[in-house]
């Protein structure tokens, strides 16, 4: 097990390096720092001095890969690639355009993001599984059919509609919760409840339908027929046999997103004014703050790789037939 984990982590390294190289190419080779400076300072009438100053302030005035003017290790170390990309592996993300330390900002904003994302994940999984179970219990009836139609209809509604409509109905017409904002501690609940409900609602259509298919597939297995032949009641078969076996693919499939919960949701956080990582990313996109976007890409990929690893481990935990080798 330990050997397997170590090997998987070593596999992850080249992927992370690849991500790093792709983002570096995207941010520094497609557009030179000169282009970015001109973009930030306005395209017309920029003096070369202003560009040089902009680059020097952000450390973009060094060569890309190889510094011929430095000596020894400095030839590699005093370059943009080392400064902006290699240092990310040490979780040193540098500073945002407004001068704040990105790593500090990220640790501060992780809390609010998790406060929304974790309830959304747990509640979403629970409601989708329950709803799918309900449909499967009444399978091949009009209730099942109506439920599937409802799922498809809910999938076809834009996520923006849930947010805009929900905010308008609950906050503006009913005055139940504040439209947007955030508070520390327990008082955050009144700000969090609406975004959580809306996110769950927006996601339930596609996941409930998918889970229903998994449940139905499980029904075709031989052990279900055996259980029925033994004379077990339909309800017992559903809850003791089908549910437990169907949960294996459902839960292991959900594991991959757990680490990425840290990233928060761009849309929800932007609409509800939650000071998490999602709104941080959106603000960075709108302000064209490349340093922040680069840092978020790196963190997001690292978390995704952790998610893949966790998925593998969870497979072995729930299904003893799978051996890691």
């Amino acid at each position: 097990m330990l050997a397997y984990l170590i090997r998987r982590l070593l596999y992850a390294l080249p992927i992370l390096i690849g991500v790093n190289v792709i983002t570096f190419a995207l941010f520094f080779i497609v557009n030179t720092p000169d282009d970015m400076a001109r973009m930030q300072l306005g395209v017309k009438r920029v003096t070369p001095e202003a560009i040089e100053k902009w680059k020097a302030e952000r450390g973009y005035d060094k060569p890309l890969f190889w510094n011929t003017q430095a000596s020894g290790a400095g030839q590699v170390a005093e370059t943009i690639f080392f400064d902006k990309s290699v240092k990310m592996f040490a979780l040193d993300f540098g500073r945002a355009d407004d001068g704040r330390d990105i790593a500090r900002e990220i640790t501060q904003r992780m809390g609010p993001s998790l406060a929304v994302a974790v309830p959304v994940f747990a509640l979403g999984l629970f409601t989708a599984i329950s709803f799918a179970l309900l449909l499967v219990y009444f399978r091949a009836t009009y209730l099942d059919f109506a439920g599937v139609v409802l799922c498809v209809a809910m999938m076809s509604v834009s996520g923006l509609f849930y947010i805009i409509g929900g905010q308008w109905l609950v906050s503006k017409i009913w005055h139940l919760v504040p439209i947007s904002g955030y508070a520390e501690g327990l008082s955050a609940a009144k700000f969090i409840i609406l975004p959580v409900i809306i996110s769950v609602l927006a996601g339930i259509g596609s996941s409930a339908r998918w889970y229903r298919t998994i449940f139905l597939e499980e029904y075709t297995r031989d052990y279900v027929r055996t259980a029925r032949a033994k004379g077990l009641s339909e309800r017992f078969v559903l809850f003791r046999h089908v549910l437990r076996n169907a949960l294996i693919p459902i839960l292991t499939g959900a594991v991959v997103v757990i680490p990425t919960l840290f990233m928060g949701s761009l849309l929800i956080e932007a609409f509800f004014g939650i000071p998490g990582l999602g709104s941080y990313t959106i603000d960075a996109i709108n302000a064209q703050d490349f340093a922040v976007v680069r840092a978020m890409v790196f963190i997001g990929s690292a978390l995704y790789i952790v998610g893949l690893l966790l998925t593998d481990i969870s497979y072995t935990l729930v299904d003893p037939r799978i051996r890691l080798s």
Partner: protein
Amino acid sequence: MTSFKFVLLWSDALFFLLIAAVIAGGVWSRRQPHLRANWRKVGQNRVAMGSAAVLAVFFAIAFIDSLHYRPQLPNVDQGEVRYSTEVLSALDALLMPMRTQTEKTYSAPLATHLFAKETLDDAGRDYPPLRYPGTHVFGTDKVGQDVLYLTLKSIRTALLIGTLTTLIMLPAAIGLGLLAGYVGGWVDDVIQYLYTTLNSIPGVLLIAASVLMMQVVIDTHPEWFATSAERADARLLALCAILGITSWTGLCRLLRGETLKLRELEYVQAARALGVSSARILWRHILPNVMHIVLIAMVMDFSGLVLAEAVLSYVGIGVDPNTISFGTMINTARMELAREPMVWWSLAAAFIFMFVLVLAANLFADALRDAFDPRASR
């Protein structure tokens, strides 16, 4: 204004190519008995045919909207003929009254008077009458444009994003997927590494980063584009390409798996034993047998891409702000529900059209998958 200059934007060309490919694919599959049986199954499905009819209307509107031209400017002096820099489409010509009959600002659907009171010359403050009362089925927006016209124009953007994205990524996904599955070895390793790496970058962030970079490229090279329509078009295509880069990995993995399976089947083994070259085996024996996966992936991705366009444009990393799309419509109308009294028709029109389009696409995709994927049939 009798004369005009035909304009073929890149996205138009690709859209026509796509339609031609769909027609060619239809003709080809008519000659294959097993495919014809599948299509018959789709044809017998009433829901599928209903949604196909809805989709056909949407595609017809997008097609008319893709015939672009530049109208001739009125001849001031008797010199050379000049054309407007504004690029119009056949849909604009058909909807000429809707496009040109603008009001001053908001007006409710089918209203006769403006939405807000104004100080009039004679009678104090009152609702001023509209210039074209009762003609705006979905009302007008903040700058007085007809909302129905805007939604009809949005259809082309939505369909282009939904189809061209898949079209652009198709060669890479098919080529690499078949290669990885058939050749195996280090080629397989490299291709798997490639898509795992791309997959591990969170989609939205990769799109955001690429769109930011593309914006810098477009803004620093204004000389590449003759008209603003061409620039918006380039941005639309670039967005399709970026969305394609983030979404080809799923299809590539599916195709790799399927090829791995097909490679071991007897008929492929037999072809190899007879000395058929690898390229020919891939082209003649494997590609036709994975095309149903490509078709299913294409229709399944469509609705997600249409929805994604709205979100991305809303966030500011979607189409050019001057391109009319559902996302930009929702973005400009975002604060209208907070007004007192509220303005609901822009948002309602955009959401209703989007819902109908995506619902039809989802239902059609389901029917197609059920007919073409024997494993998914229940």
